[in-house]
C-alpha cells in the first residue's frame, strides 16, 4: 500500500535533502567571498579524514545522542522537553559531586557511580516540570524553558561559591581525581596496538551512548512501559481506556528523559573536561531537539542525526580554526541542514513519490 519503497523514504529522501542543504550552503559561502570547495574539503577532511577528526566527531555525536534521545523519549509521550540544556547542566553537577566527594579508586567504579549521579540530577531537574504538567497542567514547554534559566543560576551559584577552588579565576570545580578519568577511545585502540585518534576527547562514553540507543529502542518499542508511553503520546483518552495512568507515565517519561539528558555529563564533564565548567553543555540541549526531530524520534535516526551534527560541529570547528571563514557559517550550515532534512523534507519526498508511482503504475494490470 505504500507509495514508495521504504528504502527510498529512509535513505533517498534525506540524502537528496542533504544535498540541497549543501548546495544552498555553497551559495552562502560564495556570497561571503569564500570557496565552497575548500570549505567542503576542509570540513570533510577535518571531521572524517583522519582518526583525529573522527575522535572529535564521535565526541560531539556522543553529546547529541544523549540529548537527542532525551527529547525523543519525551516526544513519544507527547511531551516537548526543551529543558535538555538545564537537565544536562544539572547532570554535570551530579557527576561532579559524585567524583569529588566519593572515594572511587578506579574508573570502573567511578563510571557507574557518576552515571547514577548524572541521571539522578538530570531526572530530578525534569521532575518538577513533569509533575506540574501532569498534575497542574502547567505547559511543559514553558516550565522547561524556565528551568533552563534556573539551572544556569543554580550552577553558577554552586560553582562560584561552593565548588570553585579558592583563588581560581575560573568558575569551575577542582579537577576530578586521576583514578576517575575515563579511558579515551585512543587509549583503548592503543591496547590493541592501533594508533587511533590521539589526543581526542572521544571516550568510552561513546559506547555508553550506543548502549543508550539500544536501551531506548528496547524501552520504547519492546517494553510495556514504552507501549504505554507511546499510547499516551497518541491519545490520552485512549490511555485511560487502556488503564494507563497519564500522571504516572508523564512523570516517569520525563524522569527518563531528564536522566538521559543528564547522562550527557559523563561525556563532556567526566570524559572530556574532567572537572565541571560553568557552560559545559554549550547548547547541546538545543541541538538535541534538532537531532531528535530529524531522527524522527527513533534511536537509529537519533544516532545518525547525532553523527551528522557531530560531523558539522567538528568539520565546522576545523573550518573556523584553519580558514578565514567565520565560525558562524557553521551555524548557518546547521540551520540549512535542519531546515532541508527536517522541515522541507516533503519538498523532496512528494516528487519522489510521484516518480515511484509512475514507475509502478505501468507494471500493474
Amino acid at each position, binding site marked *: *500500500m*505504500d*507509495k514508495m519503497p521504504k528504502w527510498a523514504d529512509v535513505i533517498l529522501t534525506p540524502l537528496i535533502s542533504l544535498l540541497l542543504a549543501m548546495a544552498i550552503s555553497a551559495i552562502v559561502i560564495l556570497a561571503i567571498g569564500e570557496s565552497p570547495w575548500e570549505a567542503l574539503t576542509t570540513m570533510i577532511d577535518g571531521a572524517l579524514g583522519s582518526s583525529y577528526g573522527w575522535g572529535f566527531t564521535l565526541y560531539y555525536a556522543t553529546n547529541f545522542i544523549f540529548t537527542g534521545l532525551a527529547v525523543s523519549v519525551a516526544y513519544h509521550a507527547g511531551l516537548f522537553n526543551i529543558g535538555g540544556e538545564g537537565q544536562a547542566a544539572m547532570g554535570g553537577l551530579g557527576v561532579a559531586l559524585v567524583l569529588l566527594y566519593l572515594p572511587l579508586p578506579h574508573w570502573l567504579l567511578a563510571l557507574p557511580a557518576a552515571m547514577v549521579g548524572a541521571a539522578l540530577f538530570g531526572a530530578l531537574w525534569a521532575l518538577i516540570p513533569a509533575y506540574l504538567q501532569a498534575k497542574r497542567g502547567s505547559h511543559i514547554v514553558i516550565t522547561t524553558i524556565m528551568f533552563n534559566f534556573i539551572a544556569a543560576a543554580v550552577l553558577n551559584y554552586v560553582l562560584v561559591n561552593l565548588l570553585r577552588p579558592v583563588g581560581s579565576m575560573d568558575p569551575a570545580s577542582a579537577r576530578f581525581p586521576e583514578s576517575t578519568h575515563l579511558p579515551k577511545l585512543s587509549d583503548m585502540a592503543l591496547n590493541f596496538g592501533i594508533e587511533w585518534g590521539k589526543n581526542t576527547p572521544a571516550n568510552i562514553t561513546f559506547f555508553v551512548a550506543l548502549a543508550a540507543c539500544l536501551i531506548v529502542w*528496547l524501552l520504547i518499542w*519492546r*517494553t*510495556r512501559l514504552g*507501549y*504505554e508511553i*507511546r*499510547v499516551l503520546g*497518541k*491519545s490520552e*483518552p*485512549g490511555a*485511560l*481506556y*487502556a*488503564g*494507563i*495512568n497519564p500522571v504516572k507515565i508523564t512523570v516517569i517519561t520525563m524522569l527518563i528523559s531528564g536522566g538521559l539528558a543528564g547522562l550527557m555529563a559523563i561525556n563532556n564533564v567526566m570524559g572530556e573536561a574532567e572537572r565541571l565548567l560553568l557552560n559545559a553543555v554549550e547548547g547541546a540541549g538545543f541541538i538535541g531537539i534538532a537531532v531528535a526531530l530529524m531522527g524522527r524520534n527513533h534511536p537509529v535516526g537519533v544516532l545518525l542525526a547525532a553523527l551528522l551534527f557531530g560531523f558539522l560541529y567538528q568539520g565546522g570547528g576545523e573550518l573556523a580554526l584553519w580558514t578565514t571563514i567565520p565560525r558562524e557559517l557553521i551555524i548557518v550550515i546547521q540551520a540549512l541542514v535542519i531546515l532541508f532534512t527536517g522541515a522541507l523534507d516533503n519538498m523532496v519526498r512528494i516528487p519522489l*513519490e510521484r516518480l515511484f*508511482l509512475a514507475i*509502478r503504475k505501468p507494471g500493474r494490470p
Partner: protein
Amino acid sequence: MATTTGDKGVRPASAAPAAIELRKISKAFGPVQANKDIDLLVPKGTIHGIIGENGAGKSTLMSILYGFYKPDSGEVLINGQPITITDSQTAIRAGIGMVFQHFKLVQNFTVLENIILGAEDGALLRPSLAKARGVLKQLAAEYQLNVDPDETIEELSVGHQQRVEILKALYRQADILILDEPTGVLTPAEADHLFRILEGLRDEGKTIILITHKLREIMEITDNVSVMRRGEMVASVKTAETTPEELAELMVGRKVLLNVAKGAAQPGQPILEVRDLKLVDPDGVERLRGISFDIRAGEIVGIAGVSGNGQTQLLELLGGYPESGSKISGTVKVNGKEIPLMGRGADAAERRENGIGHVPEDRQVEGLIMDFAAWENVAFGYHHDPRYNRGLLMDHAAIREDAEGKFERFDVRPRNTNLAARNFSGGNQQKIVVAREIERNPDLLLIGQPTRGVDIGAIEFIHKRIVELRDAGKAVLLVSVELDEILSLSDRIAVMFDGRIMGERLPGQTTTGELGLLMAGVVDTENTPDSAGIPPGPKHVEELPEEPA
C-alpha cells in the same frame, strides 16, 4: 427488477437536464483507487441514495463533487452545464452544499459564527452576524431546524451539530444537498425528523444525495439508489423497484442476513449487579442519578436512550475510567464481588483483570490508537497479558500471530496487520476492536454503539459475534442509540433518560413507540394528560435535553 448497468436505470422523468451528472470520475489516493470511472445521474428534485461497504468510495465521490478533492479525471455537469469544480467555493456557487460524515465545524465557535464562516458579507462581522441571525430564524421556522444561534458547537449534541451543518448549506442557498451518513449519529426520532426535512426540501425542488448504511432509510425516503463497490459504481436503480435484500447483495456481493438470528436467552447467575450508582461530573452536573440493574450470565441487556443521557458516563464508570474529578457513589458487583469505583484498583486495567471487556463508543478516540499498526492495537489494553510478553519485553511475534488469527476469524480487510489502524475503514476498525474484546472471552462485555457507521456486512458479522458470546454464557451490556439494534439484539431493554433508568421492557413486548416515549423522559406509558399520544417525532425531540458540555 433493477437494471444494474451504470446510469441506465435512472432517467430523468422529464426532458429537463439532470441536476448532477458525473462522467467517468476517477480518483486515486496514492496506490489506492478510491473511485474508478464512476458515472452518476441524479435527476432534479429527487432524493438519491448511495450505498456501499466501508471504503467503497462514497465519501470520496461526494467530496469530489463538493470540490474538496480534485478528481484525476472525469467530468461534472450541473443542471446540464459542464463545470470544473476546483474548490469548494466553486461548488457552493454552483448551488452544492455538503454535510460531511465528520462534521466540519469549529468546536469553540458559536452556531452563528459557523454559519457565516466563508459566507460573510463584508469585512466586519457584526452586520454578517445580524443578517445571519435573521435568516437563521426564518430557516428554523421554515424547516423546523431549531438551534440556539449563540450556543458554541461543543455544547451541542451531535444531532444539533448536524442541524448546523444543514443550516450552513441552506444559508448558502444550496439547491443540491449532499448528506454523508447523516443518520449514523442520530436517534430514530432525530432521523425521522431529518427525513421530514429532506422531503420538504425535495418538494421545494431541491436535489438531495444521501449516503447511508441503513437500507431501511434507503427504502423509506429515496427515489433512486446507486450502489458502489470497491471504487466502482455497480448499480443504479429506482428504489421502488428493488428490495433491501437485493441491495445488500449488490453491496456486499453475497447474501446478507438482515435480521439477527438468535435463540431464546437462558440466563444464569447474575454477573453484574449495579446498585444506586450516582455520578456528578467535575462541572457539577449530575450524570447518573441512582442507576440500578442486573445482568445475568447468558443475557444481553440493551440500554436505549438519546445520547447524552448518561450512557457514556455509565460505560466509562463501569469500564474503570470515569472523568477525573467526578463524584461517585453506589456499588457495583461483578461475579458477586464488589469492585472499587474510585481510588486504587479503579482503573481500566483492573477491570480487565476482573473479566470485563469493553468496546468503547468511540473506536477512533478510545478503542484504537489510530497511528499504531493493527497488530499493536490487538494488544491495546491487554499489553500486560503474559501471553503477549516474554520476561521484560513484549513478545511481538506472539501479538502478531494473535492478530493474524483475529483478522482471519473476523474477516478484517485488508488482511494486513501491519497497516496503521487509521487506514482501515470504519467497519474494519470496529471489527478489530470487537475481535480484541470478544476473543478475551470476558464474563461481562460492555459494548457501546457497536455498529455506528459500519456497513451492513460488518453489522451482520458483529451482531452474530455478540450473540455467540451470550450463548457462551456471558453477560453483555449493550448501549446503542439504534433502536433497531437494541430491539433485535437485547434480551431485556432498559431505557435511560437524564441519568435515570426510566423503565425496563422485554423486546417482544414493546414497540419503538413505547421506547421512544421512555427515551423522552415520560415515566409511564399510562395516559397522563401531558404525555398522551405524543409521538417521538420531531416536535418532541425539540424539548429533549441537550448534551451538555
